[in-house]
């Protein structure tokens, strides 16, 4: 029977949650790297026991950890993320130029085919790659040196590259998203990039339909249909049917279209999930009810999923990297909260139960389906 491993990054360490395919009883290991912020950890699709983790601290900076045994043991790897060439400036919160500076790794995206290759999205926004299992990292500077980069601006969490999507069917095509610059696409394996933000509208920037400057919170795709993208923006849930060339809003009947994560059902490309949050300054669910919303039509029409989730006095947040799905049937859906709960649904969202309730604030959740 297949198993599931859920990798959880928190403000004070990493946790590894494992279960058999029933997904009703869980073993919890951790904290790994206790006391450190773990922004993200993710396994290689080519070798699920090969894990990469981003470990960071305000005191000691960035550390990269790698496991070759599914998180039982770890070894630190190269933590030198040096921008390739002059760095120039981006815009600061007040619109003045601000020098580019590395802060941390937000997201690690292992290659689907090579366990030694992985991409790292960092703050201040740039894309790095390792091809030797984390022994060294090199920037793909075409993104950071895009002609629009001097106009990029940080979101409240920093100017982070937080989403990396690798097109499984078209070699060399990849998407990234940056807060607050927008979505970008490369068709040549990350050498050159262009913004793909047509159709986005953001009232918080001088030109609401500008080419860059949008606070994109998350992108998602289904691997069977990579030209269709879904986006949770600062406000608005969006959809593109042409690989980002154009976007249309699909917020529909959501109680709020502000939120952070968005994800796609493993077997139903038109079934998507979001967690509405009240507003950009009130980072908690509307009415104190923690509801995942599911659309089976690729947006526009949404249904609240509430069974097993707190429906009163709940004021947690769910961050952009803190939702994931497994590939079992029925599809498992997982998300973690700022209150330290990790919720699991073994029936595609129809019902939920906490795996753990009292972790440090959850930053990221990644589900792996294991043989």
């Amino acid at each position, binding site marked *: 029977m297949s198993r599931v491993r859920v990798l959880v990054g928190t403000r004070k360490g990493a946790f590894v949650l494992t279960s058999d395919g029933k997904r009703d009883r869980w073993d919890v290991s951790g904290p790994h790297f206790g006391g450190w912020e773990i922004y993200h950890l993710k396994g290689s699709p080519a070798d699920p026991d090969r894990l990469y983790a981003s470990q960071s601290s305000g*005191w*000691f*900076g960035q550390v990269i950890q790698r496991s070759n045994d599914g998180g039982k043991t770890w070894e630190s790897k190269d933590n030198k993320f*040096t921008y390739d060439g002059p760095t120039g400036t981006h815009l600061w919160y007040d619109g003045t130029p601000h020098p580019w500076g590395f802060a941390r790794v937000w997201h690690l995206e292992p290659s689907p085919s090579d366990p030694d290759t992985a991409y790292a999205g960092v703050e201040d926004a740039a894309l790095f790659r390792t091809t030797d299992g984390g022994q060294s990292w090199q920037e793909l500077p075409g993104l950071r040196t895009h002609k629009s980069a001097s106009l990029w601006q940080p979101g409240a969490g920093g100017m982070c590259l937080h989403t990396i999507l690798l097109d499984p069917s078209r070699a060399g095509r990849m998407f990234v998203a940056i807060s607050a610059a927008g979505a970008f696409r490369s068709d040549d394996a990350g050498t050159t990039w262009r913004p793909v933000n047509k159709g986005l509208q953001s009232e918080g920037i001088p030109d609401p339909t500008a080419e860059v400057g949008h606070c994109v919170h998350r992108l998602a795709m289904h691997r069977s249909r990579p030209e269709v993208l879904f986006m949770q923006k600062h406000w608005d849930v969006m959809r593109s049917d042409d690989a980002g060339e154009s976007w249309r809003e699909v917020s529909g009947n959501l109680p709020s279209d502000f939120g952070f994560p968005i994800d796609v059902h493993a077997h139903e490309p038109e079934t998507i999930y979001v967690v509405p949050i009240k507003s950009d300054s009130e980072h908690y669910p509307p009415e104190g009810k923690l509801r995942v919303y599911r659309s089976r039509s690729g947006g526009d029409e949404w249904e609240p999923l509430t069974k097993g989730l707190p429906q009163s006095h709940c004021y947690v947040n769910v961050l952009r990297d803190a939702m994931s799905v497994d590939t079992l049937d029925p599809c498992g859906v997982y998300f973690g909260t700022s209150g330290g709960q990790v919720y699991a649904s073994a029936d595609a969202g129809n019902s939920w139960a906490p795996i753990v309730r009292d972790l440090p604030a959850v930053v990221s959740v990644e589900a792996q389906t294991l043989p």
Partner: protein
Amino acid sequence: MIRVVLPAHLRTLARVDGEVKVAVEGPVTLRAVLDALEASYPMLRGTIRDHVTRERRPFLRFFACEEDLSHESPDTPLPDAVVAGTQPLLVVGAMAGG
């Protein structure tokens, strides 16, 4: 041998217990001790000093013999007691919550 006391999180990262001892050839300066420390424990590179600028990370301090050496030139000789190994160099994380 030069004795170095690391903060708890860096001891964990370096997989050591208690004090670390490093050998330094030539003048015993802060730079020489940190170079030797990073040579023996490569996983500490970038965690005490910035990789590129080699500047002390802002939330770390260097103490020895009840003195704050954080703002000394990295090429200033360390106190005789540190050189003699009777006192350690302390790498201290700033007291800040979170």
